[in-house]
Every structure is written in C-alpha cells, then in structure tokens.
C-alpha cells in the first residue's frame, strides 16, 4: 500500500499540471494581496458601507488575519476546480493515456490501487491547502501584520481578539481540508465514468456549482434538500470565527458559537467522502477495463 502510494504521489508530482495549481494559487493570492495593499481601504469601506453609517470602526482592519479571511472566502470557491483537475483525472486520465490497463495487469489488488490513488489525491489536496495557508495566512501576517479580526456576518459583526484568532484559522483550515477532500472524493468518484479527464473535471465542477446554487437559493423546495447537500456544509469553516458571548454580551475567548454546526457539517462531509470513495472502490473492483 505504502509503495503504491509512493508511486501515485510520484506520478502526481511529476506532472506539470500539479504545479499549475500551486502557481494558480500563488497568483490568485498575490493578486488579492496586492489589490488589498494598494486599495484595501476602498475595499473595507465598500464592505462596511452600511455599517459605517452608524459606527466608526477604529483600528487596523486590514491586517493579515482579515486578508486571509478574504482570501479563503474568495479562494475556496475556486479551489475545487484545482482539486478536480487532479482528483477527477486520477482514473480517467490513466484510462485516457492507456496506462490503466497496464497498471491493472500488475500483481496488485485493485482496492489497493484505487485507495492509493485516492490517498494521493487527498495528499495533493492537503498540500494545496497548506500552500494556501502559507501564502494566504502566513505571508499575509508577514506583510500586513496581525490585529483583531473584524468580520461582517450576514446579521452581525464579529471582532475576534488577536490572541484568539490563530487557533480558529487552524480549525478553519482543517475544516476546509475536509470540505476539499469531499471535492476530491467526488471528482475521484466521477473519474470512473469517463475515459478522458475533461468530462469528470467538468462534471465535478458542475455538480458543485449546481449544489451551491441549491444551497444558496432560498426556496422552500430546495430548503428540504439543503441539509443533505455537501455544498451547504463546505463553508462551515466560517463557524470557527464566531464565538459565544456571556449575558453581559462579553466575548468568551476561545469559544465557538455553534460547535454543533461544525460537528454536523463535518459528519455530513465525512459521510459524503465515505460514500464517494466506497462507491469508487466498489465500482473499480468490478469495472471492465476497455480503454
């Protein structure tokens, strides 16, 4: 298994496409950072336009923590594409290249091969997130410094104390990793149904886009299925940036407002991962290789 994984990782990281994602992330984050460095004031003014009518916010809103939040908010919508690029290609790409049949005539169990491939895509996903953390969080902290994290939620404002922020990012990144692994699992699962990689990549993105629309639209019919859509739960990382207050409306440092939401979302995502990967293994074990 370990050897399989090594081989799969070797293949993943020998491909130029893999580094394209890292380059894309670097560029995207760089653009956001540059934009906020040059015109950050405009951005915060815009975001807070409604709020600033009644309140004056004093302090360094545009700090590294805030920048990272903006980056995550913007980027986690696009990262699924970069993950699909690799995960949805894991099987279909090999089928397309013709290497799948050679691979499967080797004295290795199909389950081991498919699991190694999935774990390789998970590792790729995690590395991508670590890279986002390095570029989006650590580099932003370095460039913009740190301070309290000022966030506008849909119905209230949260100011997280500087000393209370970092662990929340750790949690948020872990959660985002789970969400992105779900994307990887979906892409991986879909990659069984095609012998070219474009199909599953587009299919993965389409599923995510459609489900996100369903998750966002406030229509009673959709509201029924919303709790079961993984896209509804993919943004639960934001829950890490909301804390409880006591009766005097004082922030309770180190608390999370809705820990149950995080647990529920994580469970839904895990169930999706297990279903997608389970189905993938099951299908792959009996798949006739005709490519």
């Amino acid at each position, binding site marked *: 298994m370990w050897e399989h994984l090594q081989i799969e990782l070797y293949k993943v990281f020998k491909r130029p496409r893999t580094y394209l994602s890292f380059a894309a992330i670097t560029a995207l984050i760089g653009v956001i950072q540059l934009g906020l460095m040059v015109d950050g004031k405009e951005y915060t003014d815009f975001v807070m336009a409604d709020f*600033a009518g*009644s309140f004056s916010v*004093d*302090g360094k809103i545009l700090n590294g923590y805030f920048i990272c939040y903006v980056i995550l908010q913007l980027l986690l*919508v696009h990262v699924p594409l970069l993950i699909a690029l690799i995960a949805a290609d894991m099987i279909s790409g090999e089928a397309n290249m013709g290497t799948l049949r050679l691979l499967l005539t080797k004295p290795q169990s199909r389950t081991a091969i498919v699991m190694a491939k999935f774990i390789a895509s998970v590792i790729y996903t995690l590395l991508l997130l670590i890279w986002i953390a390095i570029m989006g969080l650590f580099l932003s902290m370095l460039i913009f410094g740190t301070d*309290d994290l000022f966030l506008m939620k849909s119905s*209230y*404002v949260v100011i997280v104390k500087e000393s209370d922020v970092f662990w929340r990012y750790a949690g948020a990144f872990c959660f985002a990793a789970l969400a992105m692994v779900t994307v990887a699992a979906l892409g991986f699962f879909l990659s069984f149904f095609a012998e070219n990689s474009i199909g599953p990549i587009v299919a993965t993105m389409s599923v995510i886009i459609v489900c996100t629309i369903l998750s966002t639209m406030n229509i009673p019919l959709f509201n029924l299925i919303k709790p079961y859509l993984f896209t509804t739960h993919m943004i639960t990382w934001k829950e890490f940036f909301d804390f409880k207050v006591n009766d*005097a409306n*004082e922030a309770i440092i180190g608390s999370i407002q809705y820990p149950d939401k995080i647990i529920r979302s994580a469970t839904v995502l895990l169930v999706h991962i297990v279903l997608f990967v389970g189905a993938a293994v099951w299908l792959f074990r009996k798949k006739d290789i005709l490519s």
Partner: protein
Amino acid sequence: MMYKKIYLLLLACSFSAFGFAQDMNALVSKVKAKLEKVKDYTANGKMKTDVAFIKAPIGRVKVFYKSPNKFKLQRDGGISVLPKGGVSINIGSMIMQSGFVAIDAGLSTVGGTAVRVVKLLPEADAGEIILSTLYIDETNLLIRKSVTTTRENGTYEMELYYGQYAAYGLPDKVLFSFNAKDYKLPKGITLEFDDTDKAIKDKMKGKKGRVEINYTAYNINTGLSDALFK
C-alpha cells in the same frame, strides 16, 4: 387689553426663564470650574462594546484630554467599534464649550443620588448638538448623567460613575448608550448562507447599544502637547 395680558405673560415667562438660566449658568459654571482644574490627562481604560449585533472582546484603550476640548481615544491595539459621533466620549465636550443657554428642568435622581436636571441649548442653530441634558450632582458638582441629541447621529446617553478621581470630576466608569439602528449587511458580500436563527436575529433588532469604559490610572496635568491630538 387682551394683547397686553399676553405680552405680560410672555414677559413673565421669559424673565422667569432667564432667572432660572442665570441660576443654572452658575451651576454649570461651577461644574466647569471644577473641571478646569484638570488641564489635561491621560488614562488607561477597558472598553466593552455591547451592541446586540456586534460581538467584540473587551479592548484596552487609552484616552488623552487637553483643555478645553481636545480629546482622543486610542486603542491599545485591536479594533474598536464606536457609535458615530460618540468619539468624544467625555464630559467636557459639551460643558466646556461656551455659547449655550442652560435651563433648569427640575430635580431627579441618578442611581440614588439627587441631581439637578439642566438642559443646555446651543445658541447657534447650525451645530451638531441640538439639545443636551445634564444631570448634575449639586453637592459634589459632578455630572452623573447626560443625554445628548445630535442632528445626525441620534441620541446618546452617558452615565458616569465616580470613584477616586471624583475630586477632579473624572469618572471611573462611563456608560454610553445609544439607539443602534437595525443593521443588515447586503448579501453576496459575506458569501455565506444566511441561516442565522430568526430568534437570534430578532433579539438583535432594535436594542440599545452600549459602550462601557472603565478607567484606571489617570495621569493628570502632565502637560500634554497639542501634537498628540493631531
């Protein structure tokens, strides 16, 4: 005859008003005189923002004051949210200015202390402050409470609690309340699915906002430079 009666009545009223104003001006002047002993000060404080839709940690602030009307509230790191126009959360902001009419509005109590209610009307029409009501503890010459109605930013209420700096007329604690407007962020910017419980949302509506500053360690009359307030 009728006209004359009305005229006299009006005259009487204005005289009485003037008479009260005279008294109240004296009281205000005494309070002012007490406050004027403090040429400047700096103080450290802990600021708590209590607005239903703002979740904020307790922040540390530093305030600087220089007579007659220079005031600066500085965060000691962190981000603070203050109601607009409430930046000059200090008692001097109103009383230290000249050009107002003081009117007696009777007696009252604030937190068990008997106070004289004084309404201050600015003489100029164009000013930001429309009306200010002071609740003055006549015995100690301390302002216990003030209610200020502004042209742009609604009404603020300030309660002051005194302790060891009462002799200088400086409060240990200032409780600043205001009407927080319902606030809603346009969707799309937050990129989140709005699933906040309705009960919580309702709880956040139409509540009074409060900012509480607890002062510690005043440094009085150290000779602050004007540059500090720029």
